[in-house]
């Protein structure tokens, strides 16, 4: 067996070693995470809440607050334009059909404002 290995070209041995190491480390990664989790110090019930790393503004209120929320989104996603509320946009906003998505959230307000711009 050793003789056969010795007769193999070196690069095949290197590739085989790399393959074994990468496979093992990939397989062992979850085990490592479990190990860390199990042996980490006891945490509180809010342990899934990350420490504040950025500003997170939470608005709780009715449709007036929602309009403010949209105006704030619009202010920074369309800084050159003014935030308009026309009857069409009002209907869309009022019915809350515009869903927000993290990072792409401005698309929702963009849709509303496109309607608004068209009806101006």
């Amino acid at each position, binding site marked *: 067996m050793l003789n056969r290995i010795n007769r193999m070209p070196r690069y095949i041995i290197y590739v085989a070693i790399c393959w074994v190491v990468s496979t093992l480390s990939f397989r062992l990664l979850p085990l490592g995470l479990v190990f860390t989790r199990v042996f980490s110090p006891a945490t509180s019930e*809010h342990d*899934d*809440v*990350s*420490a*504040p*790393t*950025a*500003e*997170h*503004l*939470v*608005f*709780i*209120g*009715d*449709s*007036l*607050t*929602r*309009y*403010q*929320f*949209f*105006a*704030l*989104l*619009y*202010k*920074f*996603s369309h*800084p050159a334009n*003014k*935030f*308009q*509320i026309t009857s069409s946009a*009002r209907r869309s906003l009022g*019915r*809350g*059909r*515009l*869903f*927000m*998505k*993290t*990072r*792409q*959230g*401005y*698309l*929702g307000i963009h*849709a509303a404002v496109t309607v608004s711009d068209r009806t101006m």
Partner: protein
Amino acid sequence: MSPFTPMCENRFCTLDVGGIGSILLTYLQLFGETESMHGMVLPNETHLATIDTVQRAGKWSYLTVSQCMNDFVSRLSPRPTQIFIGTGAWPHARIMFELKDTLIAASRLTRHVYWKETPPFQNSLTGGKGLSRPQDIDERALEYCASGLCKYIPFPDILPRSLVNEDGKPDYWDNFHFSSGQLYSLWNAHISAHAEGSTAMNRLSRQLTTGDDGKAA
């Protein structure tokens, strides 16, 4: 109507504000005493709050604001740094009853908790006073804010000329909602100016107040 319609969706959005970086915004609806605090997206799965027309099943609902604060808002990630609350025109006797608990729950999450004064209704703007018309719940909130549970943000008493009509009043499209988008922008500037509590908020406030929307904020 089903209690779980798109109307009840909560919204999450990340704003990239120049000079500040990312600011995460969350809106949770609170329509007075109606069972309005519910949605289809859990705090740890905001990636599901997509822009589409899919009707998803509701995943959470709360009967009281304090409960929502304790069990939902507290689990938002990143943790809220500023919380703005207001009830507007909806009936609010029950919310008023548990207002102290709500503010205590909010103040456990962040020291920057703000009560947003109810804006004036069209039919309340009689006489020559300014625009601030606090409701009973606002007065109660003012008491709690005085004891340190929150910071009270009154509605701007005076608006720039461009935002009022000949009678010095803003235009409405019903008894409660302003028709000018600029007024909402100005209101944001006014609120952020009161809410300065961190470097990022100070910068946000400056950006809002120096724009064309907020000249008179």
